[in-house]
């Protein structure tokens, strides 16, 4: 059993997935009012994976990797506050943008204050992409009416997380890869639930956790690994694939609860493969993972 828990693949996939499913099950046992907090399962899944992989968090985080767990907690807290007190779309967007800038800057502050280089350009590109993603995920105006379960964004965030995990792995960092994988798996619990018909309407917590953790992971990859910024930038196009599906896929197929996540997932998988292939092409052999 302990061997299984020590397996990096299990730590970043099955453990967060099952933890999130268990939390969802427990919340479903509570009165209906509590169901708005089903999104907490994403946070708990991620935190359990982090504990199994890295142990208890250090009290005073110094290294970027040690800050991720705190960023996850901050993102969940911001989401909870937004869920309870602030329902306005504009305020959600502003709060998430604040979270995105905070998490990216906290990870990369040493490099941000370094002399101006291409790293700064890459950072701006990534931040702009994350901001755009937040706009797409949180803005009511961009909500696709066919996406009745509001599941598209979660599928996109999960596939982007998996692609980031692969990019991180190519950049020789298994810990970033595991964190990204754990985020995808935690989101997977809600996607799976929606897929089988136990609908979870993704609230601010569900969206804030990935939207704020991903910039931190991207900052880690961008600043502290040999990965190239362009494959990461390519991934941000994923947030527009819902529109693509809306235009080119027959409406009857789009409305299918079973087919829609598969279509969105398939389109994003193509992007993810392109990003990873690009990353592989850019990396010097000596800098890549095992």
């Amino acid at each position, binding site marked *: 059993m302990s061997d299984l828990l020590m397996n990096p693949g299990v730590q970043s996939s099955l453990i967060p997935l099952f933890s999130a499913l268990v939390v969802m099950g427990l919340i479903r046992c509570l009165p209906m009012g509590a169901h708005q907090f089903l999104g907490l399962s994403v946070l708990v899944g991620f935190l359990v994976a982090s504990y199994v992989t890295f*142990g208890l968090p250090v009290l005073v985080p110094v*290294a970027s*990797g040690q800050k991720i767990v705190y960023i996850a907690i901050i993102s969940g807290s911001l989401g909870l506050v937004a869920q309870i007190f602030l329902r306005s779309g504009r305020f959600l967007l502003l709060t998430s943008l604040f979270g995105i800038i905070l998490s990216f800057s906290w990870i990369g502050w040493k490099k941000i204050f370094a002399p101006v280089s291409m790293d700064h350009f890459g950072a701006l590109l990534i931040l702009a992409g994350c901001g755009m993603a937040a706009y797409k995920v949180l803005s009511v105006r961009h909500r696709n009416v066919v996406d009745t379960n509001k599941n598209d964004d979660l599928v996109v965030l999960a596939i982007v997380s998996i692609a980031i995990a692969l990019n991180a792995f190519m950049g*020789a*960092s298994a810990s970033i890869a595991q964190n990204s994988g754990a985020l995808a798996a935690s989101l997977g619990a809600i996607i799976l639930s929606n897929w089988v018909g136990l609908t979870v309407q993704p609230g601010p917590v569900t969206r804030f956790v990935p939207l704020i953790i991903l910039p931190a992971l991207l900052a880690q990859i961008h600043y502290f690994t040999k990965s190239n910024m362009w494959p990461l930038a390519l991934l941000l196009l994923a947030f527009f694939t819902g529109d693509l599906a809306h235009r080119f896929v027959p409406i009857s197929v789009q409305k299918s609860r079973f087919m829609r996540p598969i279509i969105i997932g398939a389109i994003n998988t193509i992007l993810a493969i392109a990003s990873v292939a690009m990353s592989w092409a850019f990396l010097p052999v000596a800098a890549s*993972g095992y």
Partner: protein
Amino acid sequence: MKKTSLVSATLLSIAMLFGFTSLASANSTYVIDTAGVHYYAGFQISHLGFSTMHGRFDTLSGTIKYDDAEPINSQVSITIKASSINTNMAKRDAHLKSPDFFNVEEFADITFVSTKLVKTGEKKAKMTGNLTMMGVTRAITLDTTLINIGANPFSKAPTAAWSARGKIKRSDFGSNYGAPAIGNEVTLIIDIEALKQ
């Protein structure tokens, strides 16, 4: 003419003052012989409970303020470039440089500054000092040995050599990834030859 003499006298006084100070001090400064690469900073760690993996850092620098009269009062300061890690396998080195382990882009240097020496034998001492690694500073103690001090037989340059051995726990420095499969205890092996300045 008088003005020139006054300036000369002042300069002479300053020079004498510095000369005197130098003579009065028992400290000699030795600098690690980086040009000749007469140093080794290595480590050993358990690999999945099977073999012991050996690695080293190829770039370091440092000084030893050696107290000729009371060697126990000497001070050591060493800086290691974390990115110079070498385990004889490029891909493993890339992994060790990543945020999983040494995170060399975020923490470029590993430093050691001694704070106390306690004599344990004729040429042996326990050296306590602050090791800063991955942004965390912890006091560690190394067993040190003065190997030799004197003139280099070829260059005749005053030279000294020391060795240091010790163990640390990488988790003390916030490095938990892969533990306990990849060992927590790390053995340090440092050998240096330094030239008197």
